[in-house]
């Protein structure tokens, strides 16, 4: 039982570290225009009028990433850990997908405008850790549920 408790906290710690790294990554450079580097939020604002449709909606919603992860942590603190973990998995995959999409863009050397790898790469690492941690929390929660169902002997 002690091992289970330690494991649960370890996975939560991994997720927390991932969220921290992920959020730091969003404030690192994502976009270069000339000599100006923009973090993910500045890039979303600057690019918003250049795109349309779903991408524009995504850019508008992007700043919510901080509040979304804060919600996950708050739910965990309120002991709604499975809900927190499920949301963590969803946000982790979503954030990682955005980072991968940006990393997948051609750097276009010579072009004045282009993506910068630093921000999305760190965010991807953080999102992956957060996702793995959330899966661990979810799995641990499942184990405990089974133990509870069996009841004390």
């Amino acid at each position, binding site marked *: 039982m002690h091992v289970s*408790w330690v494991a649960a906290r370890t996975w939560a710690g991994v997720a927390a570290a991932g969220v921290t790294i992920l959020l730091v990554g969003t404030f690192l450079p994502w976009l270069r225009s000339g000599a100006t580097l923009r973090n993910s939020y500045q890039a979303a604002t600057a690019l918003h009028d250049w795109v349309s449709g779903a991408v524009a909606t995504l850019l508008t919603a992007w700043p919510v990433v901080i509040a979304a992860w804060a919600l996950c942590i708050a739910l965990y603190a309120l002991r709604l850990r499975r809900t927190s973990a499920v949301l963590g998995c969803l946000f982790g995959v979503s954030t990682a997908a955005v980072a991968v999409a940006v990393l997948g863009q051609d750097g276009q050397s010579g072009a004045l405008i*282009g993506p910068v790898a630093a921000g999305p790469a760190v965010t991807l690492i953080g999102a992956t850790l957060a996702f793995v941690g959330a899966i661990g929390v979810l799995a641990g929660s499942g184990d405990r549920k089974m133990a509870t169902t069996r009841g004390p002997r």
Partner: protein
Amino acid sequence: MTHPGSAPTGQPEAADDGQPQDIALPLATDDSAGSPKPKSRTGPAIGIVVAVVVVIAGGIGTWVAVGRSGGSGAGSPQDAASSLVADLGNDDVLGVVNDLPPSEGALLRSTLDDAAAQLKRIQAVKPDASSQAATGLSIHADGLKFDSSAVEQVNDHIAITKLVAGKITFGAGLTTNQYTDAFLHAAFPNGAPKGQSTTVDIAKVAQSLGHPVRIATVKVNGRWYPSLFYTIADASLQADHQNWPARSIAPIGSDTVNEASEDFLQAVLDSDAQNAIARTSPDEMAVLHDMGQVLVSQNKVTHDIKIAKITFDDRQVTGGTEAVLRNMTLDANGQQIVIVHANGCYTVQIAGKQQEPLCAGGLADQLRADPVTKSLPSGLIKSLDDMVRGLGQNGVGLVATEQAENWYVDPGRSITQFAHDLEGSITRQDLVSMLQLSN
């Protein structure tokens, strides 16, 4: 070590999501033999405090991220001009375009995007090339300085800043890794030319003008923006030794796209500049409304040409709806002129007499038959003919935009749409022919 809020052994505590939580705690077994202890209330309280703190921190983080992400516009004309200077100094094309008033920025962006899309269509540039890279435009500024004490407030929404020193370099050239090898090989068999650039020394320009270089800024929705259109308008007023008019021309909207187009065309045929300007978009063409009184006072020519009948085919285009001319009957001093667009051709009938139709293929034949133009390179003749084919197929029209349930003609969008249709009809071979002619 007891986890905050842990449940007594054998009585797993269910959280709000219905899942039993924290039954596997190290000290839980300590309670199994003794009497149940009262539940700790410290744990949930700490959890709630942590949750509240995290939510507040998340809110503040979001607010800071949004607040520092550089929304458009500036608080003063000087700040707007300084922002432009900073972005020019950093070669920040994205920043420069975003510095412009929203309507001008939108027009510039769609123009760049259209040009890039056409270059991609004919496979001249690679599919993933950016608009800026594809069009090969660049701008760089060094040491730009404004006279901060000399901002000239024209009215409540126009202010002129004075640029006194520095250098601006405008560049245009091929970013070769953005273009397809096939295009580069066909267009430049001896190697791609190096880009050309022009540097403007502001101090010298100011000396030759006799006054600082004036950069106009405009106030839109409470924020100041450096404006390309207003700067050009201000320069033309300065060249004519005129001031900005004291009052603007009020916009007159129409109920439909076609009505707006017809009213605008009739005003143009009447040489009624005031009415024509009133029919233009008060958003993207705000500069026309603001300087319109000067244009009206310069325009005194009158004609007697009336639109007797006109019909359009409407189509959605970038930024608005285009009313494409289908047919029009004009009454010019009792003489009837009929223009019809059908089957990819424009035909004109004057006083019942049919003129040479403008059709694809027809222009090439005319150019080859004409003793003056028959010596033109065949590639150029084909390019011109392709353009006419495009215009014949797409038709020529006016783009109108809707604002507050009123329709206005947008000359800027109409011109860019015309250019877009021309570009859309050329082939890669046409572009190669034109580039080879220019080399």
